[in-house]
């Protein structure tokens, strides 16, 4: 993967702004259309039916949640060039903050008057983001001095440590109850609401999730196209050169890690309220890898690639689960893991800039012919 060629042929700012605006409007329109299709569903004509049961509405919500994480990861890996193999742990911090402080409020001595307020979970979402950002800030300065393989190993180790903390609780419990719920995790995370307006059933939650994702995308696009964004790309290309241009690379790297951690934590909270339960499983090493694959498929240095990468991975996984199972026979329904690994290898060998970038290239060539 090479640094994006941002010097050549940059269109004028106004044209780019307009293009972005069109993109956001078109994408939002698409999201709303899917939502309406599901809600109105003339004659059972919903998402699940339309795609032969491969993409359920549930999947659409998941794609929205994970898009938020992957947008943050793209900023970190694609633009700033810093590997993170522990991103799922930040996702987990958000989920656990939301889950612990809603389901364990009584044990923690938080009065029911406070914990039953509608804005309490929303406050926790912000609190989770602050905590994830704080953790990222504390570990970022020393860890981001590492490069390449070593950074990958360090973030991986960090991710595993955080998940073990979720799982083991350090043997610490309040009263008779284990704070993080250990292996089993926590159940009964409440649904989100605004005042007395419930953000559930899932059709309503869908809009919230995608609103967050689209706002995340817009913010990321702004960041990427700002002075800071150019600084990030510069330090991806050559850190030393960026340094000589007066860019405080250490500070920029920490900042982008903090931002990506906050994206992940926000999504994690949404995930906890969506699943109504958290357990250490979905935040481990495998999950971190899956996030990297999603970023890689969509294209590391491409904010718009994020939703496509997430969707592609989830859909391929679903297809493999349903179709490969009948081909290979019984193995606990885990065959997709193999294909998943192979897919990762093939993409990284043949399309290191991501599938979307490769498609774009292909269409450009096709047009010019």
């Amino acid at each position: 993967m090479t640094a994006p060629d941002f010097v050549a042929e940059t269109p004028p700012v106004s044209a780019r702004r307009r293009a972005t605006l069109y993109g956001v409007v078109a994408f939002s329109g698409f999201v709303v259309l899917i939502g309406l299709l599901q809600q109105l569903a003339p004659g059972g004509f919903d998402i699940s039916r339309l795609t032969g049961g491969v993409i359920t509405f549930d999947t659409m919500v998941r794609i929205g949640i994970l898009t938020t994480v992957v947008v943050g990861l793209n900023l970190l890996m694609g633009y700033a060039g810093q590997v993170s193999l522990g991103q799922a742990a930040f996702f987990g911090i958000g989920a656990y903050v939301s889950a612990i402080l809603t389901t364990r409020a009584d044990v923690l001595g938080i009065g029911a008057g406070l914990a039953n307020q509608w804005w309490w979970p929303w406050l926790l979402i912000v609190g989770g983001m602050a905590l994830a950002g704080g953790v990222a800030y504390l570990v970022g300065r020393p860890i981001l001095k590492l490069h390449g393989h070593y950074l990958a190993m360090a973030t991986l180790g960090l991710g595993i440590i955080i998940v073990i903390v979720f799982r083991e609780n350090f043997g610490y419990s309040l009263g008779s109850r284990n704070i993080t719920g250990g292996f089993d995790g926590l159940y009964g995370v409440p649904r989100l609401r605004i005042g007395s307006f419930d953000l559930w059933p899932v059709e309503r939650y869908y809009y919230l999730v995608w609103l967050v994702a689209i706002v995340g995308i817009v913010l990321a696009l702004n960041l990427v196209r700002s002075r800071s964004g150019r600084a990030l790309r510069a330090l991806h290309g050559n850190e030393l050169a960026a340094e000589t241009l007066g860019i405080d690379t250490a500070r920029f790297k920490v900042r982008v890690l903090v931002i990506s951690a906050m994206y992940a934590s926000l999504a994690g909270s949404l995930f906890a309220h969506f699943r109504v339960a958290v357990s250490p499983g979905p935040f481990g090493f495998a999950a971190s890898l899956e996030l990297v694959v999603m970023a890689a498929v969509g294209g590391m240095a491409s904010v718009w690639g994020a939703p496509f990468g997430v969707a592609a991975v989830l859909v391929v996984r679903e297809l493999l689960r349903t179709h490969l199972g009948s081909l290979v026979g019984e193995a606990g329904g885990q065959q997709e893991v193999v294909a998943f690994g192979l897919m990762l290898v093939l993409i990284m060998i043949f399309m290191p800039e991501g599938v979307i970038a490769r498609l774009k290239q292909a269409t450009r060539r096709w047009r010019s012919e």
Partner: protein
Amino acid sequence: MLALIEKRTSRLALKAAGVLLVVAVIWLLGSRQNFGLQQYGQLVVAGIGTGAVYALVALGFVMVFTVTGIINFAQGAFVMLGALFTVTLYETPFTGEGRTGLIISALLAVVLTTVIGVVVERLTILPARNADPLTLIIITVGVYIAIQGLALIYWGHAGRTLPSFTTATGSDSIFRPWGLVIKAQTLWVLATMVLAFAVLSLFLDKTMLGKALRACSVNRDASRLMGINPSRMSAIAFGIAAALGAVAGIVLAPLTKPVYDMGLTIGLKGFVAAAMGGLISLPAAVGGGLLLGLVENLAAGVTKAGLRDVFAFIVLIAVLLRGRSRAGRFQ
């Protein structure tokens, strides 16, 4: 000169103080559980046993890294393959019963794993030879996932058992010097580690092929000019690493229940051990492995077994950061 000596002694004092602090904390935590000398001795024995396995895996990391500059995340997969192939071959009727069957299955498993190592290198590392580190990391990780997935399909979720080498039965003969419990299999692990280290050192020092491998690690272009094929050396390094991983898995198998997902943590800890030695030195990798095993077992022993990996990865991050501060070793 005097200033230099002063600086050295103060650094030494700092180190000594650090070690004392760690020992004090361990002692304090241990005394809360009424640990005596015997308990500590037992933890040390267990630590050396697991450390020897890490050392074996670490040797593989060092081989691949010095020759190719790649950190092979799939190293742990070779450990798992070695163990599970041995179990399967031992259980299939054609290798006969008893100890000879065990030895033949182990040898066959090593050969199989080595072939897989070479094939993996040819299929995945060779086409991406000039990609940047991030891409290579993700590729080796992908290879690991694929191999683990195949293992899951072939062997399933359940842990297998391999009889211990000396008795060829499920139960192991046990020595009890000074009230400590030492399994014969632990001695096998240690002996294998020492043997592998010695053979590998001699191979790299004395044979033509070994020298070619080392030449490649010093300067690829220069060694190419001398008629060495760096691409072939890369494949050989992967083969050796796979063999070392397989051996580690085989000697470890009777002590644990080998299972399809055992490779990840063992591979990572092998990397920690190799990184403790700077990733380029075989003796340092062995030392790193033993030290990691000790630290992990003592720390987990005095606190909580579930926290074992936390200590290992704290050591990893500390080692990386400290290595970074020393002459930019971990760039």
